[in-house]
């Protein structure tokens, strides 16, 4: 089972891989079942950085979310 500390360490490694890439708009922690995992939000999953399925034994989840904007009306 992957715990939160392992996922945090893997997240740092993922940030080194995608740092500064404008196609990425968030790297954080999430769950896959009972395991902690790294979540990478990308603008468009047809044009995103290539990432391994897992880093240091921690699963990496990539999801397309589009652009993020403030929620004023």
């Amino acid at each position, binding site marked *: 089972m992957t715990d939160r500390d392992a996922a*945090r360490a893997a*997240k740092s490694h993922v*940030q080194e891989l995608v*740092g500064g890439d*404008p196609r*990425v*708009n*968030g*790297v*954080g*922690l*999430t*769950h896959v079942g009972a395991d*902690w995992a790294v*979540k990478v*939000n990308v603008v468009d999953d047809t044009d995103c950085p290539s990432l391994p399925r897992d880093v240091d034994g921690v699963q990496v989840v990539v*999801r*397309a*979310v*589009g*652009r*993020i*904007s*403030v*929620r*004023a*009306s």
Partner: protein
Amino acid sequence: MHIDNARELKARLLAGVVEAASLEAPNGTASVGISVLGRDAEGPRYGLAVRYSGSRGEVLADSARALADTAAGSELDIREIGLVKALTAPTEPGTWAPESLQRKVRPLHPGLSIAQQDVTAGTLGAFVTVEGSDGMFALSNNHVLANSDQAALDDPVLQPGPHDGGTAADRVGRLARAVALEAGGGNTVDAAIALLEEGFDDVDLSYPAGRLTGWAEPDDEIAVEKVGRTTGWTKGRISAIELDDVAVQYPVGVVSFDGQIEVTGETGAFSAGGDSGSLVYRPDTREAVGLLFAGSERGGENGTGLTFCNPIGLVLSALGATLVL
């Protein structure tokens, strides 16, 4: 019993109800249905389900009880069901409906439309006090109460916001403090507070779940809810935490945030434009966890978009504020 027998008995019972109804003005329910009791070698076994209430139902119940004393008694299920009402939606929107939250409302309460005079509309998230300052403050985002750092201290704050018809006559407070947004990144909160003016500081502290009990650090997978100006009362769950490098588009450009919370709506979008500033809280403990400020175009349930929040602990710390519970 055989299906034909069930149909015949049902017709006999209902005939008695119709006869009684023609003699008086009865009320209540008299309903007979055919139920499947089980199955044997010859096929399904049928029975009668009798449901009744009121004077109209008593006629049916008397007939059914008489029938129950016969050989068919074991195949009858007779129940009194009380008043039957149509499950229509309420005609008046409730306190937490968007239509209500976009109106001028006094006393002020969480979820209402609010904004600095040059902003369209956002949401009043919570009420706070500030150490060393008197009075009650309304908590929302910088881009709602301080126009993304473009407003001046003491600028009027309106309820409802201008987009919802708010004018200078709807002034309830003035901008008191905002955490500056750094264009270079490294932001953790989009937050500001407005000092409520005399006469508006007698507020209602209730949320749909009741009054807050405090605040808590966010954790992944926990259930949360919020009440906001555009989508009203919505429910969701935290789907990611400690999100760094979240690039958010503002009217003034892109601003990057670290340490953010991501929320997925339970059945659809958790938020929409105008919900900025909503307080996100745990309904099970009534603890605040985040201040809603942004949303994505896609992702989440049914692709309706994800919602992003600042951890409330960081918000309160940056403003030197304490939640009013």
